[in-house]
């Protein structure tokens, strides 16, 4: 509202100035800008130049010392704020990235651990079953060996018994037939026969 009033006042002032600027007594020949010889215009032209220097100096002083540093500070402040915000955003992003990486690494580690545990369990079970199988095989082999030894012993005992029986029978037969028998000779003959028949 105040601004509108200000503009209205300015608009009303303009015709007043223009009317005040009614033409001078002596008519101006040619361009008024170059009427240095005119009694009134010439004086005003020089005055215009001097006032221009003063007014422009005032403008420069106000701008250089008061207005522009303040506006510059506002703009600088905004740039600093934007830079700080961007930096904060960058930091937050880096933090989030780090957290994400940590999370990923933790997941990876847990997965590796689980994999290792599974492998270990499988290996342990494998080793245990291998050991059990080996022990069983060893026990069975031992039993087989024992059984074979018993069979061998039994066979040897049986073989020994055949020799005795054969010798006794042969001696009895020879005694009955001949009336007497030479025990060592009979034993030797029986041993020879058994040897040839492959039963010794």
């Amino acid at each position, binding site marked *: 509202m105040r601004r509108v009033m200000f503009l209205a006042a*300015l*608009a009303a002032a*303009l*015709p007043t*100035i*223009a009317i*005040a*600027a*009614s*033409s*001078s007594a002596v008519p*101006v020949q*040619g*361009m*008024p*800008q*170059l009427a240095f010889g005119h009694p009134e*215009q010439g*004086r*005003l*032209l*020089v*005055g*215009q*130049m*001097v*006032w*221009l*220097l003063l*007014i*422009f100096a*005032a*403008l*420069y002083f*106000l*701008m*250089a010392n*008061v*207005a*522009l540093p*303040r*506006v*510059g*500070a*506002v*703009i600088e*402040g*905004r740039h600093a*704020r934007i830079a700080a915000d961007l930096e904060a955003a960058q930091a937050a992003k880096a933090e989030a990235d780090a957290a994400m990486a940590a999370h990923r690494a933790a997941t990876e580690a847990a997965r590796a651990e689980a994999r290792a545990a599974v492998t270990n369990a499988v290996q342990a079970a494998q080793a245990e079953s291998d050991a059990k199988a080996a022990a069983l095989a060893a026990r069975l082999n031992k039993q087989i060996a024992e059984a074979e030894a018993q069979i061998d012993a039994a066979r040897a005992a049986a073989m020994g018994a055949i020799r005795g029986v054969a010798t006794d029978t042969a001696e009895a037969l020879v005694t009955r037939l001949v009336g007497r028998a030479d025990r060592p000779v009979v034993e030797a003959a029986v041993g020879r026969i058994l040897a040839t028949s492959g039963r010794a």
Partner: protein
Amino acid sequence: MAVEGKTIDALSQFELSPVLGIFGHAVSFSQSNLFMVVAVALTWFLMKATADRGAMVPGRLQALGESAYEFIQGMVRDQVGDEGKKYFPFVFSIFMFVLFGNLLGMLPYAFTFTSHIVVTLTLAAVVWVSVTVIALQRHGTHFFSYFFPEGAPTWLAPIIIPVEIISYLSRMVSLSVRLFANMVAGHVMLKVFATFVVLLGGLGAVGPFVAAMPLAVNVALVGFEFLVAFLQAYVFAILTSIYLHDAVHLH
């Protein structure tokens, strides 16, 4: 006022007259100077309002002031470089003064102080003297090597040096005459076509229809003049920046 008898008076709009009563008469304070004060006041209020708000997210007025600030700051930085920072308030003052001078002239009844050669020449002289003083301060007598480019054959010196000196001096003239001529031409055209509207409008029944043509021309001219107002302020500021660049870097 524009039509006296049957002649077209396009130049009386540039006449000076004292304002503020006895004070204006005593110290030759004309309406031209009054509009300079208005231009300074508007610049001051704009920049002060911009600084006073100082909001993180600027409103319309603050954005206007800040864009003016950043426009000229960017221009000075691009043309002069980082050493140009301390000359920024000077270029900014020149730009705003010329811009408001041109724009105030677009208001009805207003006076266009940039249409006076005395004003533009004084501004150009301020620029020229400042630039020369800056160059002498920074480079001392080495500044005079500016008038003889390195590597040019010595026997050409009698030709090159006068040419360079004349071109350096004529900066002042070209800077001032460009602005002056643009503003005078624009305002004379506006006045002439406005007078046509009045003269043709008085031709009985067909008058208003015929008068519509110069009126249409004037509407277009007003738009064109706004363009010229900005463009000439920009040209004045950028040439000042370029001259400052020469003063700081010597070629």
